[in-house]
């Protein structure tokens, strides 16, 4: 699917650069993310993956352009980008520990409600919240404070929050890091299910997970896009092999 950028709902990143005090963490990145495929961002540590996502979600300043749904995302503040339909998770799951699972999901649904409704208590469970609870498999834990959830469950809760937010584009930062093999498999299934009509971009280090679930892989290195393609194409790419094999043990890319 090289015509990704032609998709009407694609997020188009053009010539995006981010620099910190003269150091270019991301430089001249062109990449397109389209709905319906699981798009993975991989690359060695310090390649600029998280910085790229930070720039697209308003956490750091970037130059260039990133347009989604006719809107320029660069320059918007984080909460406006979220309201434009672009959401994200973080490397360390940040759910609201003091609130229950249900409350976490409910406040995430808040951006679709008029502000004055904030003055009132919740009555019943909104349909979107119920649906998300079902999808992320936390229905039985809905009244538990999010702080007591296991690491994997917190990551699922974050994905659930993006679902009720109805984020059309989701950036997931190392979601399966620290998960057990079973949890990884379940997460993969979950992403497949919700990714059909959404744009899902996953930053990942776990190559098995990438191999099992990626439709498209974009490899970053030293702030630039090194290669893009299917898993097979990436594995056969010499530049990628050099970057990975030159630094880490053999077998990280070749299974």
């Amino acid at each position, binding site marked *: 699917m090289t015509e990704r950028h032609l998709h009407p709902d694609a997020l188009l990143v053009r010539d995006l650069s981010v620099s910190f005090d003269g150091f270019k963490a991301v430089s001249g990145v062109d990449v397109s993310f389209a709905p319906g495929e699981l798009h993975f961002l991989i690359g060695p540590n310090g390649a600029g993956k998280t910085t790229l996502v930070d720039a697209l979600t308003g956490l750091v300043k970037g130059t260039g352009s990133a347009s989604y749904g006719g809107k320029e995302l660069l320059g918007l503040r984080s909460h406006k980008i979220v309201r434009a339909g672009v959401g994200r998770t973080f490397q360390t799951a940040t759910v*609201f520990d003091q609130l229950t699972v249900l409350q976490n999901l409910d406040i995430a649904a*808040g951006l679709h409600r008029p502000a004055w409704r904030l003055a009132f208590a919740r009555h019943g469970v909104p349909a979107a919240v119920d649906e998300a609870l079902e999808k992320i498999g936390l229905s039985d834990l809905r009244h538990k404070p999010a702080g007591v959830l296991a690491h994997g469950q917190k990551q699922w809760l974050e994905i659930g929050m993006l679902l009720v937010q109805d984020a059309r584009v989701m950036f997931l930062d190392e979601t399966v890091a620290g998960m057990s093999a079973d949890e990884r498999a379940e997460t993969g299934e979950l992403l497949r299910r919700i990714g059909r009509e959404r744009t899902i971009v996953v930053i990942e280090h776990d190559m098995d997970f990438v191999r099992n679930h990626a439709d498209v892989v974009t490899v970053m290195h030293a702030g630039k896009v090194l290669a893009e393609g299917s898993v097979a194409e990436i594995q056969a790419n010499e530049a990628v092999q050099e970057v990975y094999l030159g630094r880490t043990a053999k077998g990280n890319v070749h299974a």
Partner: protein
Amino acid sequence: MTTKLKSFLPLLGIAALAIALLVVAPAVLSDLRLNNLAKYCCWAMVAVGIGLAWGRGGMLVMGQGVFFALGAYAMGMHMQLESVGDGGIPTFMILYDPLAPLPAFWEPFRSGAFTIAMIVVAPVVVASILGFAIFKRRVKGAYFAILTQALAVALATLISGTIKYTGGDTGLSGFTSFFGYTLDDPLNRRLIFTITATLLVGCLVVAWQLYRSRFGELLVATRDAEERVRFLGYDPANIKLVAFVVAAVMASIGGAMFVPIVGIMAPKSMDAAASIFFIAGVALGGRAALFGPVLGALAVGYGQSTLSEQWPGTWIYVLGLLFIVVTIALPGGIASLATRGAGLLARLRSSDRKAASA
């Protein structure tokens, strides 16, 4: 019990407090004690606001004296003008310049309606401007606390330095009537107590509704992970601003009622030390609990009066000691004793069960 019913339980607590204040207290307390209780109720209103801003919102508001002063001086100016009658000017002004006209900003406070409106509008305007500037710039934590404290110091200094307009350190006093009711009459003073206690109950109901509302959940979320809230599509600055403004209005109303009850309003009732005193009750009672700040403020107020009656000068040490002990041993305040007790009981029970099954 269903969760829905459970969320109404605190209303029973508020009702109990209302009965204690409005029925029991007037029946058993002497006029003097009742007037003291009215004063504690004023501090308790400030405390409910601090509970909202600090306990739920994580903003350590160390300068609530600023908003306390807004309400108090609005009320003080009105009562001063009411006491001197139509066209008169306050006696302290005559002392400085017998021929000086009433300052222009005093004039509208002849009107009772204007005064009542300002008691609410002034803190809303001031807190909105301050809050907007502070929260949009993402000032938080210790910097926020110091900033608010500095504002209280600055305002106290300003009032002290503008004797001709505000009465300076001596303050406003010599009031004789409150919206047409003479302050000499004990019955009228009981009426003022009733109004104050009712306002306090009102503040608690507002806090209860805010805590159970979605806003309350969002406020706690903002307290615990402000940056994360941005990724829910909210600007945390706006959420904090609302809590800050509501807290300011409560402090202002408390300040306004303080004036007819105590009969004097001077900078020392709103300066840095007074602002910290507001905080102390909240911390002792439990800042995040609904009833923590009220009970804490009432207790600290009572403690101050009774202890300083018997051993003048020792109270401040007792308060300091209490503050240290509670902060170290009970960070959730006295209100957390209940949940702690319940937790301990549950643990004892489960260890009993384990012992039985072993």
